[in-house]
Structures are given as C-alpha cells and as structure tokens.
C-alpha cells in the first residue's frame, strides 16, 4: 500500500482523481446526499434543550441572553465541525462544494440576526428576540438548503412556522418556542437526515 504513495506517477494521480469523481458522481446520482450534517443537528438539538432549561432559570434578561448566546457559539462549533467531517466523506472541499453554497446563503441572515439581537435587547424588546432568531434561522436554512435535498428547506419552513407562532405569543413562552425549534426540530430533522442522507 505504501509503495505507490512513495512514488506516485501522474497516471496514478489521474486514476485517483477519476476514482474520487466516480464516487462523488455515484453518490449524487444515488440522489440524496446533503452536506447538512444530520448527527451534528441532533447534537445541537440536545444542547439547545439544555440551554432552554438553563435560560428559563436566569434571573435577569442579560443572563438569559448570555446563556443563549453561549449556546449559539456552541452550536456553531458543533455545526462547523460536523459539516467539515461530512464534506470530507465525499471529498467535497468546504470552500468549493455544496458547503460553500450553503454557507454563503446561510450566513447573511445569521449576521442580521446578531445585529437585531443587540438592537432589540437595548431597545428593551426582549420579547421579540426568540421569534427573530427562529425566523432568521429558518430563512437561512431555506435559502442555504434551496439546492439541497428537499427535507432541508422543509426544516427551514418549520422554523418559520414556529417563529411566526412565537411572534404572537407572550414573552413567557419564548424559551418553549426556542426549545421546540432549536431543540425539537433539530433532533427530529437531524435524525431523518442522518439516516437517509449520508450521516
């Protein structure tokens, strides 16, 4: 196994490229690969349940916000790590493949979400923060998943529906909506994606 590695000829290089292309083509034809990491979502969902539980017990709005922001960073780390791992399976580089497309469409709503969070917090409109998060996250998933398998935008729409509900619900329901969205939807859709769409 090591001998071809030590002295690889251009022909070997071409054959290796050809083999990788063949694997990727087959996976794409087999139809249901998505760069979105299913198991990563399940993990994010579980941490979101814990965050909702913890956030609901915080005495001040600031402490509440800190808990959720920490959860956001944790979810980002889990998401990035599992996305990279899954992209590797089909040898699609994160910066050129479907991961890049997803990232470019997903990122703008997240940046807007970050800005609005601080604006709403300092305006004293904490009630509007949970629906803003759910709505913008759903928007990001829909636009990012537009070219992915259908289940991804469907998940985005589920987030929009929850966000809309949260928009008109009393503030005390905020953590419940966040738990249902970032916890429940992630776990349920994550499991479906992991089982049907390549991990």
């Amino acid at each position, binding site marked *: *196994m090591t001998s*071809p*590695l*030590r002295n*690889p*000829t*251009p022909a*070997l*290089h071409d054959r*290796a*490229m050809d*083999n*990788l292309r*063949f*694997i990727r083509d*087959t*996976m794409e*034809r*087999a*139809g*249901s*690969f998505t760069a979105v990491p299913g198991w990563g979502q399940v993990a994010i969902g579980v941490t979101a349940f814990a965050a909702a539980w913890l956030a609901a017990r915080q005495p001040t709005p600031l402490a509440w916000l800190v808990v959720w922001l920490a959860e956001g960073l944790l979810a980002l780390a889990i998401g990035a790590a599992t996305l*990279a791992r899954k992209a*590797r*399976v089909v*040898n699609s*580089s*994160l910066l050129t493949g479907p991961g890049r497309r997803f990232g470019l469409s997903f990122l703008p709503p997240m940046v807007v979400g970050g800005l609005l969070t601080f604006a709403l917090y300092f305006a004293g409109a904490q009630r509007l923060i949970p629906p803003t998060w759910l709505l913008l996250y759903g928007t990001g998933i829909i636009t990012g998943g537009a070219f992915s398998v259908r289940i991804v935008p469907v998940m985005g729409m589920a987030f929009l529906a929850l966000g809309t509900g949260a928009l008109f619900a009393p503030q005390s329901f905020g953590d419940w909506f966040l738990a249902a969205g970032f916890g429940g939807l992630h776990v349920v859709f994550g499991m479906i994606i992991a*089982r*049907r*769409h*390549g991990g």
Partner: protein
Amino acid sequence: MAKPARKVSVSSPTPVTARPTLEELDRLIHERLRLAIVSALAVNDALSFSELKQLLKTTDGNLSVHARKLEEADYVACRKYFDGRVPKTEYRLTAAGRRALERYLDHMEALIHATRER
C-alpha cells in the same frame, strides 16, 4: 483539507480466517461496480436490489455477484423479505463497509496529495 493520514490497523482482533488482508481490502471496493454499490449505499439508508440495478445500470447477474462479494466481506448487509408475494432483497452499508469506503477515500486523497507535493 489537510489531515494526518489515518492509521490502518492491519492486525485486527477478529479471527484472521474470514478477514481479507489490506491489499485485498482495497481491491474489494476498488472494482468499479462494487465501489458504486458502496458509494450509493453510503448516502442511502437502504436500497433494494432493483433500485441498485436501475441506479448503476447493470444486469441482475453482475449486481448479484458483486453484492455477494461485498456481503461476504461484511461490507454490506442483505435482507430478504416478502412484499406481499414478491420476494425483495434490500441492501444496507455496514459500519465496516463505511470504514472501508473512508479508508479508500483517504488512500485516493493521499495519492493525489503525494503527486501534488512533488
């Protein structure tokens, strides 16, 4: 994406009898149709014999021979059942099969990196 080459343990704790050697491991999925079967199953929970046949545009005989080889190596699991009166065969990728595919991908990536660095 740069990453350390994964160590492949040649001495497996399982009995040596049915275990193919490293060279054979590679060849097992190196063959085009077998590589295609493993790749297709890697992105699907399960595929039936007819789905695989259609997807890979091959014949019954060819597919069953190669699927059997993968089954013998424990790379795919095969389940036969009746859908009403119609016998069906369904294939799934095993954990060993997924590892073999990842190892194969690593091998190909290593080959490509090695030529680039020259």
